[in-house]
């Protein structure tokens, strides 16, 4: 469960500030996958960073009763000079997970083979994303934060990622932001629409999509 209490967050833009949330209170309940829709610049990524704790709100409080992941597929935490394996070990330590178990899972899942022992700076962005995806699954979070469903690898690898989420649907939740309604529909059972400093929650993804569509204009599929 992640609870926002009277949270205000804005970011600066040339010539003023843009509100992501204005005095908003809401809760992500345990046992549901949330898909958050919103247009460009609505602050979807900022909202994810608020949830993860990477960015503080300007006012208000965010209470997390869950182990929340860093935004999924985010490979920025990797140290370029360290090998993929060493980077995984670092994250395992930070999150207090069993280093060896994480190592085994990542080696099996990421399909990086001997590249796992090469410095991350030699990786292509696709390989780094595979590694990031593998390690965040290995760390077994309660809530996974997914930004736009990063295009990781080929169709087969994406299938594997979806399967992994399916397998852990009973013990882990997902909060996903996207402007693409059908990925949300595929991954989530509840929806929300972010925009104009407010967020509206819906018990079904379809209802959220309806509001999003009416805001975006109907031809924007």
């Amino acid at each position, binding site marked *: 469960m992640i609870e926002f209490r009277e949270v205000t967050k804005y970011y600066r833009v040339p010539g003023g500030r843009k509100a992501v949330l204005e005095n908003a209170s809401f809760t992500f309940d345990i046992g549901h996958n949330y898909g958050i829709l919103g247009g460009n610049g609505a602050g979807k990524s900022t909202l994810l*960073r608020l949830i993860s704790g990477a960015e503080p709100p300007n006012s208000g409080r965010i209470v997390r009763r869950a182990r929340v992941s860093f*935004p999924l597929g985010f490979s920025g935490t990797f140290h370029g000079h360290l090998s993929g394996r060493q980077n995984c070990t670092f994250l395992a330590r930070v999150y*207090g997970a069993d280093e060896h178990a994480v190592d085994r899972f990542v080696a099996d899942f990421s399909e990086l083979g001997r590249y796992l022992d090469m410095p991350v700076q030699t990786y292509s962005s696709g390989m780094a994303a595979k590694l990031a995806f593998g390690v965040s699954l290995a760390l077994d979070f309660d809530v996974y934060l997914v930004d736009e469903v990063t295009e990781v690898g080929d169709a087969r690898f994406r299938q594997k990622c*979806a399967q992994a989420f399916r397998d852990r649907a009973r013990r882990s939740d997902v909060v996903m932001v996207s402007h693409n309604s*059908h990925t949300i529909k595929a*991954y989530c059972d509840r929806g929300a629409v972010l925009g104009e400093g407010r967020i509206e929650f819906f018990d079904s993804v379809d209802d959220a999509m309806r509001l999003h569509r009416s805001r975006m204009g109907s031809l924007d599929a």
Partner: protein
Amino acid sequence: MMDEILLDPDVDLVEAQRRLQEAVDRNDPQSAADLSLLVATRDPASAHAQRVASGYLTAADRAQDAIPHARRALELAPDNREYALHLGIVLNLSGRFDEAAKVLMKVARMAPVDPETYLQLANASEKLGYNDAAAKFALQSSREEPENENRRLIVAHFLVRLGETDEAIRTLMEAGAHAQLSNGALGTLSALLGQAGRFEEALEPIDKALAQEPGRADFHLHRSWLLMQLGRLQDALGAARRAVELDPANASARRHAVTVLIENGEIEEALRHGGALLSQFPGEDEYVSCMSYLIDARAARGAAESFSEIALLKRDAPRRELPPPPTFVDKLRTQRRSISALVLREIRGRNGESKLGFFWTLMEPFIHVGALAIVFEFTMHGRPPLGDNFFFFYFTGVMPYLMVSHLVLHLGHAARNNKHLLQIAQVTPFDLMVSTSIVEIFTSLLIYLIFSGLFAVFGVDPTPASLPLVAEAFAIAAVLGVGCGMLCAALFEFGQLGESFVSIFIRLIYFASGIFYVPSAMPVFVRDILAYNPLLHGIDAMRMGYFSGYNPPWNDIGYAAIFAVMTLALGMLAVNVLSQRMRSIK
């Protein structure tokens, strides 16, 4: 034949009228216009002839030429309402709205009931920029003849143009109350209701129209659009399919079908339509981007296919308990974990840059001490200020300085260089400071030990006279370095200027810290100024620890210790206050 009669000055009026009738029967508007003009010139006193000429000229798209005749007709018969209205229409057509409005206002006063006059007035007012008046006239026009659907449609279109969609809808609905609306009018009414966002109401007229004329692709398309807006995706899909089936060449129907198909998850069928659109209009941007979206959607779907029952899975999952909120001890444990992970990462990362990583760390003090020793060995021709080995003397001064300056610079940049690490909520800027400090201090200790070993090998006794004093001096330098480093981390958050200042200041301190001299060698007034530098006391204390018998009376190790601790406290405070700012990505 035509030209002949037009050029003949003596042509008979009756003959001209006969020819005119022929041209009209032939349906030849240009000849009719020319001949009516001839008749009008021959018969200038006949209002009727003038009116006829103006009418045929207007019909031949020569409204400009018609104006003088329309005017003349009205002058000859000033009470003729029809002539006046005609002049108004002709003026409107030639773009002389100002004059048209004047004439038409007169017409409106002449006789009461005439919808056409109001419509013409509405037209002139709109062109003159009086939108309110235009709307009023348009409504008046439709009220004068409530059962005339055609006029209502014109009025409705006119009102839409003025932005009065609601008025337009009302006009058409009133017409519907008087008589059964035609299919065209029903379609327009539904379109207007859709435009106004009244989707539910809009369905009724379009359903009626389709009941009478089920083969209209554009009606099915519109109905599908309405249904989609209402969220009835399945029904919308049916209507869209019907529209495309009825009119396969209709690109907007196909484009809409793609949208509805995507919403229904029928990517394969959408791809078929997208492909048809592209082959019909190759290179059209809209269809290219539509197609590329579809291809992406198809790929994403491949991954999500088996996942679409997620809602069911989530519903059937057993209720999970909330984990207990973290206690203070948990938080401490988290912090200890992240600091130790950071330390290991830092050590590996720093030395992983090249196989010679740690060798370079050793080389810096080595070169530094070596250069000082060699230069002064030659210039001073003899003994160093303390002890009997130049290398050892400079070693005792350079090491604390290097530790402080490394701490200041590395801590100063720790938050900025590791923004991405701060995206992990468990890692705080303070953790970064602590882990960097630990690595720096341990590296310094290691270098101390290695150098001591080297000195012993080369026959210089590295054992300090007082180990506790050396440890104390080392600790003061370390605390001072960490404190200043944290203050710099805070300062560097505010831009480049602070960085430039610090890098200059740190070089100046080099000369003011007694590294290559002992403070006693300085004139008293200089030494009194230098005594404000805590590092000077620290380095001097280091030498007191190494060289027995060196005990300068002015040294104040207490001052250095208090200064260092105060700096550390201030630095920790600054880092914690700015912690959130350090996290945010600008």
